[in-house]
């Protein structure tokens, strides 16, 4: 099929995700966890509407714009809010992205609600959960659940700015079905989940 990306003709196979066709940042999308459509960083414009490139398949005759002024402003704002709410110190790729978008988190003043004060949780011999660094991308929840393991030891609680991953009923991990496969660590993009062996 044929479609246009930023005015240029492109060829694509049936079922191709826009994300695989265009150059846009993404945070939550992960092929194995099947997480998609959450972080909004990969939004693109299709016929005047904003759609997430990670959850939208290419279609015949589509006209896709990836780099409008509006999209740039949106991405910059999203990244700034992430930086305000979350400790990105162990997420070098997000920091780079923030810089590339000339993000200035300070311009929003302080956010009333941030995760940055949360203490890391050490409740098992293998890894810690440092939710001060979490950006709610949900990959860990999906890796533990439907995406890879089918174990469901992690879940997302609350909504909006209060949303955060945790265990069912906030139990310590050893009291959940967790099998400590660490696939949640592998897909975590920010270092919120990391092996204890890194701490020494």
């Amino acid at each position: 099929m044929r479609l246009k990306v930023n005015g240029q003709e492109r060829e694509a196979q049936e079922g191709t995700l826009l994300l695989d066709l265009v150059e846009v940042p993404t945070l939550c999308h992960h092929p194995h966890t099947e997480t998609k459509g959450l972080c909004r960083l990969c939004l693109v414009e299709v016929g005047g509407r904003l759609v997430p490139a990670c959850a939208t398949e290419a279609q015949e005759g589509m006209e896709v714009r990836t780099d409008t002024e509006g999209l740039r402003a949106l991405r910059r704002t999203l990244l700034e809010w992430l930086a305000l709410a979350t400790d990105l110190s162990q997420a070098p790729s997000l920091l780079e992205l923030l810089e590339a978008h000339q993000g200035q988190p300070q311009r929003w003043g302080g956010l009333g609600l941030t995760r940055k004060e949360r203490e890391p949780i050490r409740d098992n011999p293998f890894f810690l959960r440092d939710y001060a660094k979490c950006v709610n991308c949900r990959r860990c929840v999906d890796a533990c659940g439907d995406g890879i393991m089918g174990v469901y030891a992690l879940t997302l609680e609350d909504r909006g700015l209060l949303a955060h991953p945790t265990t069912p009923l906030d139990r310590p991990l050893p009291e959940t079905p967790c099998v400590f496969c660490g696939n949640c660590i592998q897909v975590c993009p920010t270092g919120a989940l990391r092996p204890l062996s890194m701490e020494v």
Partner: protein
Amino acid sequence: MRTTCPYCGVGCQVEPRLREGRIVEVRGAEIPPNHGALCVKGRFGLDFPFSKKRLLYPMVRESRQEPFRRVSWEEALDHAARKLLEVLQRKGPKALAVFPSAKTTNEEVYLAQKLARALLGTNHVDHCSRLCHSSSTAALSRSLGGASMTNPIEDIWKTDLFLVVGSNTTETHPVIGAMIKKRVRQGARLLVVDPRYTGMAEAATLWLRPRPGTDLFLFNAMARYILEEGLWDQEYVKERTEGFAEWQASLDPYTLEEAERLTGVEKEKIALAARLYATTERAGAYWAMGLTQHTKGTATVQALVNLALLTGKVGREGAGLNPLRGQNNVQGAGDMGGLPDVFPGYLKVSDVTARRRFEALWGVSLNPEPGLRMTEVFAAIPEVEALYLIGEDPVTSEPYQDHLKAKLEALPFLIVQDILENETTPFAHVVLPAASFLEKDGTFTNTDRRVQRVRKILDPPGEARPDWWITRELGKRLAQALGRPWTLHPGPEAIWEEIRRAVPEMMGGITYRRLEEQGVRWPCPQEDHPGEAVLFRQRFNTPSGKARFIPVHFTPPAETPSEEYPLVLSTGRVLYHWHGGTLSRNSRLQEAYPELKVEVNPKDAQRLGIGDGEPIQVVSRRGRIRARAWVTDRTPEGVVYAPFHFAEAPANRLTQDALDPISRIPEYKVAAVRLEKLD
């Protein structure tokens, strides 16, 4: 840097990240077979090479009464060679045995069996898969002429029904367990046959809970029902199999009613399982030790093979017969000839053509008589006088531990070559410190026949050396004394090149260069061959090209419960540990599961007045061990379950050394025991 996980047969590709000589993180590589996923052992259990228990220097002593003496490599190897030659000259090749290990690389197993056959002239060569899948190997070889998974791991995504029998997949092959569960979430059915309520049983569409050791009856009853109902694949049976009529006649006694009485599974459930398996085209059978570790292990696997043939499941995508191999290189250790009756490539030592091939390659004449199997070698001590053990810990892994220890006491000469001190080291005369998987190059072959690279990331500690180097150097000394040829390979790749020449039909197309990117499956005869995924699409590996039905009959386990020993003990593994525990209990995993817990059904516990977490003793006719009771209905009434990882409370002190007549595997899954409260 990418390498292959050293725990189970899945063969996950791991990327350990090191800082200052320590592993700080392990990531799963984004390539087959695991595509980024790992389990707790691969992710957090790779730090055993840093254990304080590492063997660091060669050591020698004249007798077991003396302390070990640290010596140079020269002295240790000279001494070991001299002792082996002494036994050889005095008693001949029958008094010597070499056990390579399914934890070492293909190259190392190849070299070890070559040393045994070409230099010592003995076929007493075997390795630890004798104790795990030898029953599968025997049954599959007799019927299909091949002994490996018939289908690749990727076929899980094409399978519509899984028949998982006697495999605690989510704990023993967790990455495959997770794949099967995911496929079930996508809509496939899962039939689980297991006395224990495992993670697989929890995810099952239909769970059959037979009494331990009765699976054979169940499979035969399923086959009989499928025949009665006309659900079998008549064309397949006619075109691709032989021996059907005789086998069919043998099924007469296996009615659903009898099956219900004997197995304890309701006959409606057996019928439903049979119907679902027979009528689903892409139905794959997966199994492990629950089937094989019985005195009728071979017969039980055979019954499953018969069932698959009857319904036309072998040689088709998304189906097949898939034994889940245990150790990281069990498949490879067999492929490389680490067995008493075959050369590399499963070519029989008794076959003159095969023998000529290896005689030409190695430049020596070879012994045509198949050797003893591992369990038989131990029984033959002190007729067998010298044993060269590589990465094996029989004191922990063999059944009836006290008996085995007495045998080792009586063994005149024992070489232990290993990375860590274990329960067998105290019986050694020579200790040779080996390099761990992180410290050497080579290849492992995973459960679905994929040859994958192992890469050197660290230098070995102390004076430890790779197994291939040690075997090569020992071989050099033996060869010089015997006046026989022995190739001094400069490294693993050169050994692999010899393997390619030895079995070109199997490995000819697999080069280290090809393996850079990802593993390649055998058979792979040429370099432009992609490697075979599904075996037996057209013909079987038997002389006629047809698969054989073989009648098998139910026999009860060697030991049944009595008044004095009213419970059945089954042994196995837990997620956090690996076999004898030598690796996992010297890693971070130990913290998560520090001591032996024995599963006891709540009804038994109540009757005996045992509470959850209480200390108890498990007693069999052969010995007793101390444990903590875990009261749980994971195990059925009348059955206690003990993992065998704990040297201080070894489950194998309790197990019996009754053997399967064909595979010579011990009956680890059934022993009569009683529980005693400890105050």
